[in-house]
């Protein structure tokens, strides 16, 4: 697949605060790419720069090989589905979808054909004459998608488009968006802070934090081979433990030497070790590589979420077997469940579950506080 969009050294700051710090990224034609990160990481700004609503302070933006930094939004072959849909309240469903075609002075006959086609695609046939304000959130969302796609853009930008929908509807729309993207075969650039959404929809995920790209990769890469503690923590649950790389395929942590599959580190190099909660087996204490005391158990439906205290570090384990609080248990970890990462500026900040609930609180605060 050919490069369709390329960002080179894109930098942006507001009032002296750096929002994007030299972003380099290319987006291939026809892929579903997701910019994923917490609020304030710069993902929306990146999207707005591609859409033409913001101009980068530094850097170049290429579309199909042409520099387009100074091209206004209405001349870019890129359309946006806005977070709050931004449907025109003075126009009905039909006229909203027809709007971009009317701007292009397309014949009434073609407009009718294409709008009808779009209405079929988003399953809103029969809603033509409804006022957009009478539609539900999900329906407004569909109108917004139809309106953005009707003029056949090469790229669709989606800024947290499902954020305002309830969980059930969001799941349905995820599938639907993916289906639409496959059917029409254009590039979707999707912005979200929801890692599950990113994992289930994307061909490529770009994880961002603090105005920088942390990792680019397929969903499985990102999940299985996170590059640093931030990515490991942000995508799914992770225990991130300080370790020492004794030699290739030998890592020591929590007082035990584990076999692993990683190599290429210096002898005795300090590293971050990631172990996913679902990859830890609970065994009898005498059979465990590590032993610890259960500090809490929460029933989650599919599994129990067990917090275990191992030498003062709290691990999270997901197990289908029940263990009682204060019980002593053993932990068994397979070599392929261990992922070793280089130390980064995020080391030590994530992956300890001793302050689990606090962490959740601050996360949800941040979500509501900052939306731009």
């Amino acid at each position, binding site marked *: 697949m050919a490069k369709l969009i390329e960002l080179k050294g894109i930098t942006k700051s507001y009032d002296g605060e750096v929002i994007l710090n030299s972003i380099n990224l290319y987006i291939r034609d026809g892929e579903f790419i997701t910019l994923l990160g917490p609020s304030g990481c710069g993902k929306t700004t990146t999207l707005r720069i591609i*859409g*033409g*609503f913001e101009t980068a302070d530094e850097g170049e933006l290429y579309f199909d090989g042409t520099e387009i930094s100074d091209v*206004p*939004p*209405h001349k870019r072959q*890129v*359309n*946006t589905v*806005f*977070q*709050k849909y*931004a*449907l*025109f*309240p*003075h126009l009905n469903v039909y006229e909203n979808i027809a*709007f*971009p075609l009317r*701007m*292009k002075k397309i014949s009434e006959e073609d407009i009718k054909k294409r709008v009808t086609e779009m209405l079929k695609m988003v399953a809103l046939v029969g809603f033509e004459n409804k006022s957009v304000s009478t539609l539900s959130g999900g329906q407004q969302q569909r109108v917004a998608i139809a*309106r*953005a796609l009707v*003029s056949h853009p090469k790229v669709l930008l989606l800024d947290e488009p499902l954020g305002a929908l309830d969980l059930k509807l969001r799941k349905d729309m995820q599938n639907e968006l993916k289906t639409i993207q496959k059917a029409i075969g254009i590039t979707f650039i999707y912005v979200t802070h929801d890692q599950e959404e990113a994992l289930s929809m994307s061909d490529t995920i770009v994880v961002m934090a603090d105005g920088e790209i942390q990792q680019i990769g397929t969903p499985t890469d990102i999940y299985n081979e996170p590059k640093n503690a931030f990515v490991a923590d942000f995508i799914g649950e992770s225990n991130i433990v300080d370790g020492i790389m004794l030699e290739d395929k030998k890592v020591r942590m929590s007082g035990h030497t584990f076999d692993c599959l990683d190599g290429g580190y210096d002898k005795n190099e300090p590293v971050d070790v990631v172990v996913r909660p679902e990859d830890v087996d609970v065994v009898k204490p005498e059979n465990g590589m590590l032993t610890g005391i259960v500090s809490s158990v929460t029933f989650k439906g599919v599994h129990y979420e067990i917090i275990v205290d191992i030498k003062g570090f709290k691990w999270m384990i997901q197990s289908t077997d029940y263990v009682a609080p204060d019980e002593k248990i053993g932990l068994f970890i397979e070599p392929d469940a261990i992922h070793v990462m280089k130390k980064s500026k995020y080391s030590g900040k994530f992956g300890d579950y001793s302050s689990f609930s606090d962490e959740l609180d601050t996360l949800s605060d941040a979500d509501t506080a900052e939306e731009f």
Partner: protein
Amino acid sequence: MNKKRSFMNSIAAAPHIFWAVLFIILPLLIVLYYAFTDSDGHFSFSNIASLPSYASIFWLSLELSIIATAICLLLGYPLAYIIAKSKPKTQKILSMLLMLPMWTNLLIRTYSIMAILDNGGIINTLLGTSMQIVGTKGAVIFGMVYDFLPYMVLPIYTCISKIDKNMWEAASDLGCNTFSTLTKVIIPLSRSGIISGVTMVLVPSISTFYISQKLGGGTFELIGDTIERQFVTGALNVGAAISLVMMILILISLTVMNKFGDSDEGGIIV
């Protein structure tokens, strides 16, 4: 609980109700009374029957105020748009400048216009001419526009600045340049502001008497002057009848205009 609450509510509302009855309802009833009685206090349609003789004055008032309103709209909309589109700090300064003249009494402002337009006024002195400006329709319209322009700009400005930033971006994203964004999205979305502005300029323009007296130079009379003259000369009954008909006409036109506005966007309420 509920009863107690409604009792408290009515206590709280009492001063306002008292005020409304004393200064709004009661005067209206008095107008109504005078309109339908003769000078001896007997019920009579004679006042109403005499109204057609004022028709030409009424049409002139309507003509001038519609022209003034149209000019206010043409000048005011771009101004409101420019203010709404400027930086927050500039917005404050510009709307302040717009409001500043309103701190001076309307009558005094009208007098100053007179001083500017008069035979020996600033314009004629500067040009070294002796044009007769005061006493023309143009002078009256100019006065109306000058006096009431802020009432056009403010509601439109408020309305435009309330339009979601996403609307501008969506328009631009979907193929609009600056001009078509304005005509296809922003003007339709600021309709309620336009209706408020038009109402707030048209109503005082049509019923004004001092502007036409001062700037009309006594050469012609508007309906406001007619009403004033009736009351000053003691012809309360005819004055009341004209006022009543004016009120009804304004009420009808406001109702019609509000039909075109968004009911929930809070224009001028009828």
